[in-house]
């Protein structure tokens, strides 16, 4: 190999290196493993009239709802029950924001139960946000049924 050829080859190698690249990658088989919840949580509803409804993006209770809560308070105290108040939302708005809104709804109901004589130690609250709709459907009829708080025996 003469000097020119050497020079040419060196130049070629540098030239190729400057415009092209080389890579080696490696893949792996999937190693994820699945699991599932054990001892599913469940609870049961209080007799009747245990659902309170709300306006869109609101957590206040109208006079009809307040009357319902007064009756609920009597039933709870007469039977010495412990209750859990679940707050729910319609599907509009973001999920985590609705989780917060559902908690406000549950707490409003809990506060009204306390005002009506139920000891606060007998009440717990939880929000499910928009995760457990009562009915499906993206329309006002469904939404109005999903914006609710449920008072359940616990």
């Amino acid at each position, binding site marked *: 190999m003469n000097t020119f050829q050497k020079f040419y080859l060196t130049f070629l190698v540098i030239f*190729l290196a400057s*415009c*092209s*690249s*080389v*890579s*080696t*990658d*490696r*893949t*792996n*088989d*999937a*190693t*994820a*493993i*699945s*699991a*599932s*919840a054990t*001892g*599913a*949580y469940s*609870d049961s509803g209080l007799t009747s009239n245990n659902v309170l409804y709300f306006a869109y993006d609101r957590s206040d209770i109208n006079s009809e709802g307040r009357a319902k809560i007064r009756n609920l308070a009597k039933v709870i105290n007469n039977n010495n029950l412990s209750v859990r108040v679940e707050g729910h939302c319609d*599907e*509009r*708005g*973001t*999920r*985590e*924001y609705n*989780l*917060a*809104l559902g*908690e*406000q709804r549950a707490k409003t109901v809990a506060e009204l139960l306390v005002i009506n004589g139920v000891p606060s130690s007998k009440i717990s*609250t*939880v*929000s*499910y*946000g928009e*995760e*457990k709709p009562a009915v*499906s*459907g*993206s329309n006002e009829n469904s939404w109005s049924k999903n914006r609710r708080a449920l008072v359940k025996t616990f």
Partner: protein
Amino acid sequence: MHFRKFLLITYFIIFFPTLSSQLRIEIKGGAEESISIAVVPMQWNLEVPQETFIHKVIKSDLESFGEFNVLPPRNMLSLPTSKEGVFFKDWRLLGTDYLVIGNVKSTDIDREIRASYTIYDVVKERAIHRGSVLGPISTLRKIGHKISDTIYSRIHGIPGIFSTRLAYIDKPSNSDPNYNLMISDIDGYDSMSLFSSPQPLMSPSWSPDLKNIAYVSFEEGTSRIFIQKLSSAERKGLKLEKGINSSPNWSPDGKKISAVLSKTGNPDIFIYDMERSSWSQVTKHFGIDTEPDWSPNSKSILFTSNRSGSPQLYEVNTRNNRIKRLTFEGSYNARGRYLPDGKGIVFVHRQNGIFHIATQNLKTGKVKILTDTTLDESPTVSPNGNVVIYATKDGDKDILAGITLDGKTKFVMPSLKGEAREPSWSPLID
């Protein structure tokens, strides 16, 4: 060049995910100016028959987001598998900008293959990249995704995201009464359930090292944050506080998780320190503070608050807890996520009662609405910052859809069984 074939690699094949796909990318309207590329079927030098065709995986990857127009083999004038068979004139004639050829061979290791490939710039008539991908023969799709990533990054100069993964929640259906925490490849293939529960699951978030997913489960009758290892299914519940325990989001260094607790009486942003297993409070306001997202540089946390009377996005400095309001347009801006460069955010924006996905430039404050469907939520950004996947509705059905941040390409990912929501895009995979 690294000759890694001399390394002894042992594969621990613990679990085979279902190979059926749950999400498929279907493009609805693409970009007008796409790059034309030809991916020639690879020479298959193995005795076993070929079940997955790597060039088809690459074609479907590159066409996913409308940026490439991939020439089908039936339109090719020749099917070269080595440089001797490449006649640039022919490919120029077909209007091809780039050409990819390659071959698949077995290696010294049992059931392992090597796909070697070359990317040519047809106009400049030269190779711009030579590479190979090694892996078990069961990972042909993943090998294709790796090659797609390299093609994408060589041509666009930013990382390809075809090897990334998606976590999402599948809600109960007639076929499965449970909520499922799912993961799949970003094209919807190789989906599997990581966790299954009759009670709601929410808000999956990938750890930066991709080894864990944090999420919310109601299995104990109240919301609680869990961290689950992908490799062993080992789960750990974060210290449970009274009220809401939700909205987990990992810090960029993976040592902390920002989340929402309402133990003080109303939802505020807290940080969980993984080493100390303890919570510290970041925001304190009687309104709702929720949906934290750590900035890429760790210096701030984006969150939603209704402290002004309606949900808006704010940023809290993680050093001094100083708070700055970011959104001012409209009466509902929520569930924000930083773009990977930290220069913008993507979020849910309500306009005339309709929920859209929008972006905002953090320097100029300019808001751009990306989507035109209703009830759009849970946006998640690709780690290269080019694409957003979000949850929306198809009639009454929960589906995932996507859009490129330039707004040019939209796609839907219709779920084949069940209904998908709350997508979470993984970080880049090495």
